[in-house]
């Protein structure tokens, strides 16, 4: 894991002091709310329906037990004893008092954490693959570059007042577990002629105009990634639309210019920028990479797991994934108990996960974009004890990538932008499919719910997506089918007229029935949809 040096710590401490001063000026009336808004947003502080919401950065989703415990402490001391893990691999708290915010940032800084640029029209938290460093299929660990980019993007003077927010994702394997091409910039680390570099995609995103990012460059050498990204951002900062908030993301610029023209402008800028010495030396990437060296794995461990307990066996088959080192496994902890709120965890659960990480996983945890937690290095021999401990805290739900492993935005229960509630719909669907056997029969089925067109719940990328809209004052839910945020990235298609709250649950069930009736051996829901198309689903839904 990355550890701050004196420079990093001094920067974060300065940020706390700066925000303390800004908050004091706001509370004293020296700053208007309009002037204060961009400042608080750049520290992750939103004014929501009922209170301030604070979003804390978890860079590329990785954190230590000590940091995790601090998240529990904040939930306990400043909020209502729980936090919400987000699709940006962050955590947010829903009931924060403005006057407490500087103290919370100071608490975070004491464990090398912050809320810098978790909101605002700037470069946001860099996301990455939750299996980084432990999956066999990666060309290198993507996190060192993600950390390098975290530093580069922090307090970037030119790119802090962009037309709109800006999200970057770094992965390093062909399998995409991070929805890379649905980011403003998606980076896939690749090997070319023995050299590692970055394949760059620009202009993806969800929201009201979903787009899959086109490839803008097939290879940027490691030593020029920063200057190439500076060129990408500068073209956006200068030419991105500012006349309409809903057309201000870079995807609209790339779409309106065309990928070729955007690329040409970037290349022109890059030709000049790469000569300016903007890129840190490779030694800096190596310094960071040393922090991500593999932990001291034991050798000679057995791969055997006693699966005689049926519940344990079910959990292992669903939640545990192969690790590249013999005798170890990757464990996914579900934050999606049936009937719960997707991504929520109590401070007691957060503390317990921190303890378990310390005991069983080299003191490290990861947050996934699907709002679950990963312990990446668990000895297979420890799996039964780990499972027992999770089970006692309602954290042993076996539903990874199954229909009840739902991504949902906070929706109208919390969010001032939402048109409809997301959480109750997620709860009802999970209850309808509560039977584990039934979920496993359905197999991989990613269901994602957004409470408005801004698509924070990634509904465009769901195998089944649900979009809540307001229809003449009544909540109404549209159904989308066939989306994917993985390496087979695709945007879902709307089935037709929407449904009411109970109707959408029935509609989801009908869609799964069509799948079960039509699937061939080994086909996932999304495969069957791609093969048979929308018509049979429509027929069943609107008969």
């Amino acid at each position, binding site marked *: 894991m990355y550890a701050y040096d004196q420079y990093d710590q001094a*920067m974060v401490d300065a940020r706390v002091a700066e925000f303390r001063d*800004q908050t004091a000026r706001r509370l004293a009336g020296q700053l208007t709310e309009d002037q204060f808004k961009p400042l608080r947003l750049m520290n992750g502080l939103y004014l929501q329906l009922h209170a301030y919401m604070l979003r804390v950065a978890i860079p590329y989703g990785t954190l230590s037990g000590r940091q995790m415990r601090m998240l529990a402490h904040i939930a306990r001391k400043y909020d209502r004893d729980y936090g919400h893990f987000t699709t940006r691999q962050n955590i947010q708290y829903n009931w924060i008092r403005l006057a407490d915010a500087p103290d919370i940032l100071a608490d975070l800084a004491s464990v090398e954490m912050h809320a810098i640029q978790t909101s605002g029209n700037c470069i946001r938290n860099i996301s990455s693959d939750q299996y980084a460093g432990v999956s066999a299929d990666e060309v290198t660990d993507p996190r060192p570059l993600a950390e390098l980019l975290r530093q580069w993007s922090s307090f970037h003077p030119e790119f802090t007042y962009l037309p709109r927010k800006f999200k970057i994702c770094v992965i390093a394997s062909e399998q995409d577990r991070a929805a890379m091409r649905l980011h403003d910039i998606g980076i896939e680390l690749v090997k070319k002629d023995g050299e590692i570099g970055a394949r760059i995609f620009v202009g993806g995103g969800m929201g009201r105009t979903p787009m899959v990012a086109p490839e803008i460059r097939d290879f940027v050498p490691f030593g020029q990634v920063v200057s190439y990204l500076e060129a990408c951002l500068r073209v956006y900062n200068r030419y991105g639309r500012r006349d309409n908030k809903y057309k201000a993301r870079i995807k609209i610029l790339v779409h309106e210019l065309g990928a070729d023209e955007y690329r040409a402008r970037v290349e022109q800028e890059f030709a000049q920028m790469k000569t300016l010495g903007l890129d840190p030396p490779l030694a800096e990437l190596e310094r960071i990479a040393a922090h991500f060296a593999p932990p001291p794995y034991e050798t000679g461990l057995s791969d055997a797991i006693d699966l005689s307990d049926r519940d344990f066996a079910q959990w292992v088959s669903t939640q545990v994934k192969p690790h590249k080192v013999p005798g170890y496994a990757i464990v996914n902890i579900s934050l999606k108990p049936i009937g719960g709120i997707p991504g929520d965890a109590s401070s007691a659960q957060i503390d317990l996960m921190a303890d378990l990480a310390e005991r069983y996983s080299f003191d490290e945890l990861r947050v996934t974009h699907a709002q679950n937690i990963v312990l990446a290095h668990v000895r297979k021999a420890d799996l039964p004890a780990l499972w027992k401990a999770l089970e006692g805290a309602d954290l042993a739900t076996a539903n990874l990538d199954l229909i009840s492993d739902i991504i949902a935005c906070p929706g109208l229960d919390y969010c001032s932008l939402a048109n409809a509630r997301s959480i109750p719909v997620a709860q009802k669907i999970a209850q309808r499919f509560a039977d584990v056997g039934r979920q496993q029969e359905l197999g991989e089925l990613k269901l994602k719910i957004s409470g408005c067109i801004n698509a924070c719940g990634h509904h465009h990328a769901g195998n089944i997506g649900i979009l809540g809209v307001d229809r003449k004052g009544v909540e109404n839910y549209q159904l989308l089918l066939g989306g994917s945020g993985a390496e087979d990235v695709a945007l879902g298609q709307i089935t037709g007229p929407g449904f009411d709250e109970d109707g959408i649950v029935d509609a989801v069930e009908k869609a799964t029935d069509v799948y079960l009736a039509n699937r061939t051996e080994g086909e996932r829901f999304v495969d069957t949809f791609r093969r048979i198309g929308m018509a049979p689903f429509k027929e069943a839904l609107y008969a």
Partner: protein
Amino acid sequence: MPELHSLRDGGEAAELPAVTLEAFAGQSNATAVRIEPGEDARELLPHLDRIALVEVNFPSFGDGRGYSAARILREAGYAGELRAVGDVLVDQIRHMVRCGFDSFAPDQPLDSALVEAVLGRFPGAYQKTVDGIVPIWAKRHGVSHG
């Protein structure tokens, strides 16, 4: 007339009427020019040696195009005065300085003590820009900074 804050050596600032970018092209004796957010700062590059003052207008503080304009001018070697005007707020000044601005004439007057505080607050910077600050990565590795 907005109050002027200058960070230039000796605190001297040009007292010149700045013309629009469009007018500048036709006035070979003009030495001060004002650019608006949608205008291309690169149009000034052939004339940098005769310019003493570039004003960059920020009609609204949230419109960040002027940051790129400033950096482009400095990267091209412009050494004259670079002034941010318009809706310029004290909490933006440090980023502006990092992009090459060295004077400010905001619509709303700035509190000098606060300007000093915000400019002194951060102990370093992660990026190399045009302000001469040695970036943190260079300090870590003793990279010479040219």
